[in-house]
């Protein structure tokens, strides 16, 4: 069965690239520029969530959403990878309970490897 990835990224260009690459890798991609998509997480039921830390105002940031997902029993199981250009991404990811992180600008190869590693 095809694996499904939810990508949350507020920059449309980066979202487009991520979608393109992940589709090319054979994943089903649900792309959203808005973090509120996570309210329908149980319907989407992704195998992995790839989420930007800085999301559009108003609304929560990626790490804030992650804290919420990890605090609820029915959403805790979804693995989350945070994306960010912030230098302290490692510490931030740890603090919010994310399963991994990818620094921007990302190397496409590193990205796809990381996704493969997390999804199996």
């Amino acid at each position, binding site marked *: 069965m095809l694996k499904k990835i939810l990508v949350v990224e507020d920059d449309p260009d980066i979202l487009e690239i991520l979608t393109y690459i992940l589709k090319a890798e054979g994943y089903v991609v649900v792309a959203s520029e808005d973090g509120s998509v996570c309210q329908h997480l149980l319907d989407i039921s992704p195998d992995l969530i790839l989420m930007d830390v800085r999301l559009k105002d108003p609304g929560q940031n990626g790490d804030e959403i992650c804290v919420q997902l990890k605090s609820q029993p029915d959403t805790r199981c979804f693995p989350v990878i945070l994306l960010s250009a912030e230098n302290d991404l490692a510490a931030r990811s740890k603090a919010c309970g994310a399963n991994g992180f990818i620094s921007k600008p*990302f190397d496409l190869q590193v990205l796809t490897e990381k996704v493969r590693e997390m999804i199996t």
Partner: protein
Amino acid sequence: MIKAVSISLENEMDLVLAHKRSMKVAELLGLTMATQTTFATAVSEIARTVIEHTDDGLLDIGIEQNKTRYSLSAIVNFDKDIKFTNADSGFYYAQKLVPEFLLSENANTNSIEMKIGLPRSLKLDHIKIGQIKKYFLDEQPLNAYDEIKQRNITLHKIAGEQEDELRRTKIIDEKKTEFISIASHEIKTPITIIKAYTQLAKGLQDQCSDQVKTILDKVDIQTTKLMSLVHQLLDVSKMENGSLQYTREQVAFNPFFAEMVEVMKYIVPHHEIIFNVADDVYVNIDKLRMEQVFSNLIGNAAKYSKKNTPIKINCYLENNSLIRIAVEDVGIGMSSESTASIFEKFYRAKDVVKTHSGLGMGLYIASKIVADHGGSIWVESKQGTGSVFHFTIPVISHNTASINNGATFNEHKL
């Protein structure tokens, strides 16, 4: 009013100054001795009354112009809470001495104005008024007290100016730091996009010729360089506002070091890296930040030396309390002037500015990271023969499980 002279009214000594200067203004205007004395007496009576109540009064003496008529005027300002009545004898007498006497109550201060009209025969004009003003500008102190008072005023003024200057500099500095932080963040997004699209294009195998691929490789490399510059800028701004944070963990040094060397071989492919390790120890470091120090020093060693020359990295255990890492190149070296300033922010040696690109941030950041880890960093260099950069990291404990691991690891890795 055109002010000729001002006197702050703090204590009895100021009465002398108030009296003498009132006399002088009247004299310079050409008034008779009798009028001079009358005016000066009125002014000093009011000054005395004010000094009895406060040490915060101010007397201004000058000339007031009303169309073509001039008058000699003195205004005394004092705290608005102070109220005078005719029971204050000075207040009472002064009113009798001058033709015009006006007490006004304002929002912050009260003031008393005393005026004597000046006859046209004095032929007063702006030139003459200017001369009077100049007289007081050039005037020598009337007595020792006046001299101290004037010096005090000058010092206060200088201190105030310096304080203002300091405040302004601080604000500008904060704004600059904030700007760098915002700007570098804004720059990162487009770089991310350029890099991703470049890689995407390289991946379109059937549509991308080898020549285009070579070009895209170059775009990719330059984008990475640009990104690292932006990271450095952001680091500097974080250091300035104290928001640089470390995620430290206890790690065995030698395996970490081996990892660094492997990464560096990839980063400086045209140099031969020769290294030596000491007995393994545990250190408490932020691995990413420490990698930055290594890549900066080794990157510099490669940048300032010829291709295919060696870069030696030696580790020494010092007093079992510090691990010292020495990065040695056989490059261009530097002058003693440069070794003294090389860790300063934005410092770049004069002779490399034109030949080697850079912003002078790398070593500043590296030195800060080393210092924040409790270590120190220094350089030995000789122009034309090369440089050795040393830095230390405090040791937490010995890795007893791997005594001589250094040697075995050496054999295995090379």
